[in-house]
């Protein structure tokens, strides 16, 4: 069945695109996770919805490029809004994130409903952006999204050393002369783009999961940033791949939930099985420690016995 699907060149390309979107989501998500910006991905994804709707209303077409531009502008507005609120009021960042997420998403849903009622019924197909429908991609969408995903991965490879340092110790990075503020903006911009292209595969509501679950899962298997980024990318790619395949097999099921569930499956496995941080690993090392303690106690007792006897 899967083989038959993959013979279809259209399906093959869509699967390829989902795989690349998952890959770039996992790679960028690693940095977002380590910089404690997990929620930022969620805000950006939800903020994208009004951006996409306005782009559709202005251009009247379902053009991926304009959607990306609209989503990017909305995402940037959301991040500026959060920065403004936290700087000029007593509201803390978590509250500011929650507020902007719901405000932007509300506007998005209002606009989406308006479009669905007024633009020739459901023809716009924008509702696929809520939960993702990889199969809704046209061939030109696929080319564009795949190219953007590859550019994102290349940028991360190129700036790996700098991104690592600003994620671990931004003050030290500033001290050795890196333009930290500009690099942070640039990384944020890459995350925005990763979110926007990923929306096509998993949708607005679940995009944060595709950013964070692969990163969290990868952290279970390594203590090395380079390896973590690669593993997270692989997990994202696998999730995108299997989510799209499953969605094609089971008609009408949206890609997003299936992709996220694939990633969650790998997360659950890691939570249990990872040798160092997993539940089984922790249980084994605690058991070993207890056995060593018992053994050394025995030795001590025997020595005392021998001393006492002699």
């Amino acid at each position, binding site marked *: 069945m899967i083989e038959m699907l993959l013979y279809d060149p259209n399906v093959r390309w869509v699967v390829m695109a989902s795989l690349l979107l998952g890959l770039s989501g996992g790679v960028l998500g690693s940095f977002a996770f*380590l910089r404690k910006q997990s929620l930022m991905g969620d805000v950006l994804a939800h903020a994208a919805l009004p951006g996409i709707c306005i782009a559709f209303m202005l251009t009247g077409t379902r053009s991926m490029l304009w959607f990306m531009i609209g989503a990017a502008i909305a995402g940037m507005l959301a991040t500026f809004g959060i920065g403004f609120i936290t700087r000029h009021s007593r509201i803390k960042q978590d509250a500011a994130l929650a507020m902007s997420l719901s405000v932007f998403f509300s506007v998005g849903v209002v606009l989406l409903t308006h479009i669905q009622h007024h633009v020739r019924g459901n023809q716009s197909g924008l509702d696929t952006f809520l939960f993702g429908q990889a199969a809704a991609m046209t061939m030109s969408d696929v080319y564009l999204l795949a190219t953007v995903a590859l550019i994102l991965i290349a940028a991360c490879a*190129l700036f790996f050393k700098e991104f690592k340092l600003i994620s671990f*110790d931004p003050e030290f990075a500033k001290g050795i*002369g890196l333009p930290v503020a500009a690099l942070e903006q640039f990384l944020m911009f890459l995350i925005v783009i990763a979110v926007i292209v990923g929306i096509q595969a998993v949708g607005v509501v679940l995009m944060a999961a595709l950013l964070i679950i692969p990163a969290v899962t990868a*952290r279970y298997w390594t*203590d090395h*940033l380079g390896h973590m980024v690669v593993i997270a990318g692989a997990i994202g790619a696998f999730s995108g791949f299997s989510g799209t395949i499953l969605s094609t097999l089971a008609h009408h099921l949206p890609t997003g939930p299936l992709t996220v569930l694939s990633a969650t499956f790998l997360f659950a496995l890691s939570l249990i099985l990872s040798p160092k941080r997993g539940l089984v690993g922790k249980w084994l090392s605690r058991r070993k420690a207890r056995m060593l303690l018992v053994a050394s106690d025995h030795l001590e007792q025997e020595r005392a016995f021998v001393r006492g006897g002699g």
Partner: protein
Amino acid sequence: MIQSKAPLKVTDLSVSYHDKPVLEHISFEVPEGKLIGIVGPNGAGKSTLIKSVLELVPRLKGEVTFWGQPYKRVQKRIGYVPQRESVDWDFPTNALDVVMMGRYGHLGWFRRPGKEERRLALESLRMVGMEAYSDRQISQLSGGQQQRVFLARALVQDARIYFMDEPFVGVDAATEKAIITLLNDLKRQGKTVLVVHHDLSTVKEYFDWTMLLNVRLHAFGPTDEVFTPSLLKKTYGGRLTILEQEGKMSLLTN
């Protein structure tokens, strides 16, 4: 001319946090090759002084030069050891990797650290007695070991002036000794080291020069001349009890 060559010269520096003044009208000139302790009560602006000099926090007013030049031109010759709590030690990296970050400034854009960086980083780890821990995940290190890794990272920068923010906080006795040995080594190489320090009982033993700071600069000079009961009282206000017994001075802060 000779005066302008001072490794660090600060003129009329003021810094505020929101509308609250943290540092006011600070002026001083640091001599070359000295070990300098920056001492003062909590909230005196000790860390802020270092950070504003290194342009990590904005200054309200004032001029700072290193060897007569602005910070940006001589950045590579300046080493900085931040407070240990300033980073997340659960970050996925090991001790050697953190030390290699000290070479990133020399490497420049897009170039990956290689064999040479590895060699230099291992050498620095050896200098702080941490060579056996080079591949240890950083969360698996004790507080003192983490501090030594930070020191090794600064050493590998091969700077001429070092700024250290409370390197002795929360470290074991062995680390404290390792750090002070290292500071003396640096001094012997003609480097200048400024250390934010809070333990008054060790100031006389550790530092050639001492700065007494409490928002304003109260005294700066050779420790013997500056670290006196009257100047300390002036700096700490009522927050210091000085017990003098048999010519020995004991200090209690509260």
